[in-house]
């Protein structure tokens, strides 16, 4: 049980001329569930591996609680880690895999047997204890790897895209279970993913990373509703936030001083028959099952509008769009939010 603090942490790999992780300042509270979210190649894994000690920081400090960790080896950091490809030991049974951290670190193993069985029943893998990892499905393998990671009750629990190799239904099932584990164990979780649904549904706070830099660290709803950078708006949401040049909007909308780009989420726009703030023509529609997306051309921009799935719009017709001014977000030239 420990907080984790990063102070100006950077990582540059040899043979590279850019920082994979650049000047990251991050405070993760004790018992928090923090999700590191970002596109592929943004440095999420590198950041997590810096916390684990699997990579050495080029600059900056990593603290667990008040203890400086930079020179502490991974095996002495009292952490556990779950990997995307499970990383189970193929020659050991499920039982031996789960028991490994206790046996390998020479911890007190008097209750090992009952401990392994308790964890196995918690993760619903009791019947698999005698099997080898090669005889398990992906979901079962990831459960084993979760079991192996929790048995030694680490201070900090690290996960690197643990669900990315699983299919959709298993993903949502394990999402719930990981969340439940977090509540039961009461330890700090740091979870890396590129999947915003995972991040939104599990995180206490999300740390959004792009090109090795932290853009924003906030609660999921704050990040979604009040991004401090236009890129975040365009990264989160399905479909993402509309970003329209303010010059395309005419005078009908009052913007804050310094605004060059106006953002609004597709679900905050309605098609109205009465009063309207903008008018444009439908250039295409996308059916999503539970809803429908209209692509509406306004001046030189295309605005996405989320409408009910039973509404009928034919391509080429003009529509009136309405929204409340409170849902508008304003961004300046460099993408920063204008407050």
């Amino acid at each position, binding site marked *: 049980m420990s907080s984790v603090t990063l102070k100006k942490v950077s990582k540059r790999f040899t043979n590279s001329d850019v920082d994979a992780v650049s000047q990251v300042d991050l405070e993760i509270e004790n018992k928090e569930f923090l999700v590191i979210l970002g596109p592929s190649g943004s440095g999420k894994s590198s950041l997590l591996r810096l916390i*684990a000690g*699997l990579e050495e920081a080029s600059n900056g400090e990593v603290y667990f609680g008040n203890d400086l960790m930079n020179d502490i*080896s*991974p*095996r002495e*950091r009292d*952490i*556990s*880690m779950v*990997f995307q*490809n499970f*990383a*189970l*030991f*193929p*020659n*050991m049974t499920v039982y031996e895999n789960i028991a*490994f*951290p206790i046996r*390998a*670190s*020479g*911890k007190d193993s008097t209750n090992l047997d009952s401990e392994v069985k308790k964890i196995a029943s918690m993760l619903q893998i009791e019947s698999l204890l005698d099997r080898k990892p090669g005889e398990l499905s992906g979901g079962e393998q990831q459960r084993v*790897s979760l079991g*192996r*990671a929790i048995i*030694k009750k680490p201070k900090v629990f*690290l996960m690197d895209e643990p669900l990315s190799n699983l299919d959709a239904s298993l993903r949502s099932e394990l999402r719930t279970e990981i969340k439940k584990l977090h509540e039961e164990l009461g330890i700090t979780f740091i979870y890396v993913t590129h999947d915003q649904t995972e991040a939104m549904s599990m995180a206490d706070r999300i740390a959004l990373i792009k090109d090795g830099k932290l853009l924003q660290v906030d609660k999921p709803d704050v990040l979604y509703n009040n991004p401090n950078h236009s890129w975040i708006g365009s990264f989160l949401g399905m479909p993402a936030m509309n970003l329209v040049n303010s010059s395309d909007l005419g005078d009908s909308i009052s913007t804050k001083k310094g605004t060059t780009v106006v953002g609004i989420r597709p679900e905050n726009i309605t098609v109205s028959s009465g009063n309207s703030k903008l008018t444009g023509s439908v250039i295409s529609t996308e059916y999503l099952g539970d809803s429908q997306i209209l692509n509406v051309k306004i001046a030189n921009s295309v605005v996405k509008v989320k409408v009910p799935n039973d509404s009928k719009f034919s391509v080429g017709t003009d529509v009136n769009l309405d929204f409340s001014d409170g849902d508008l977000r304003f961004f300046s030239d460099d993408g920063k939010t204008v407050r």
Partner: protein
Amino acid sequence: MRVPYLFLVPALVIIFLALIGPVFQSFLLSLSEFSLVNPSQTPVGFQNYISLLSDSVFWRAIQVTLLLVFGSVFLEFIVGIFLALLITSSGQRARTWFSSIFVIPIAIAPIVTGVLWSPNSFFDDLNTLLYYGLSLGTYIDTSKPFTYYSIIVLSDAWIWAPLFMLVTVAVIRSIPKEQIEAAEVMGASSFTKFQKITFPAIIASPAIVVTLLLRTADAFRMFEVPYSWNFWLGQDSQLGAPVDTVSVLMWKMFSSTLYDFPIAQITAMAILLLAVTLTTCALVLRRSSSLLD
């Protein structure tokens, strides 16, 4: 007649002519009386085998062969693993140097290795150094069976350990990095990582099993090193010298003027050697496939 099988016929004919035919023919030859004195091939049944199996010289050669095969294959396997660990755990530059130096013995002709490691060249100098140079008053007595068997095993391992090294390096490289990292994060020491992950991966690797099989089968034909030792132990022409492997024995029977070119008997020995080799390989294979699952 199924048409598809017809297409197999040319391949089967070639396999028979090139592989099975000669073995079969040798087997027939070993069942006859055939030598320089008696060039007409007369069938004698298993007479050649019976006389071989009741000959202590042949049994001795079998014992020497088995000792050298298991001794050297085991040693080169172990040494190969050590060299591979040394290479995979050292830095980029050292790694390049090590691997180019370590593979040199493979490139040297085995007969040269035999001579290099034999008492007259290497140990003469070493003993001079030990006895006179360093005035230690001791020397390595290469005429003691334990000593010369050890040196022969060692010199054969010296030739072939690099092969195991190369294969083992490939196997170690193929272990997913995350497995090692997972173990490290879970608190495993370097030794535990080797014992629980690297070593099991090595012995369970099909590449290693195949290399073991090839080396075992090849070691049964070991000739050059024991052959060169024959001269140093002063029993070069005699049948049943203490370092005669089966193949050295066969060669002596071929070339010695004491014998009348007993080709049928030699063939019988070859067949027996083949049987021993195949049996051993089958045992190795069975042992390792039980490791695999």
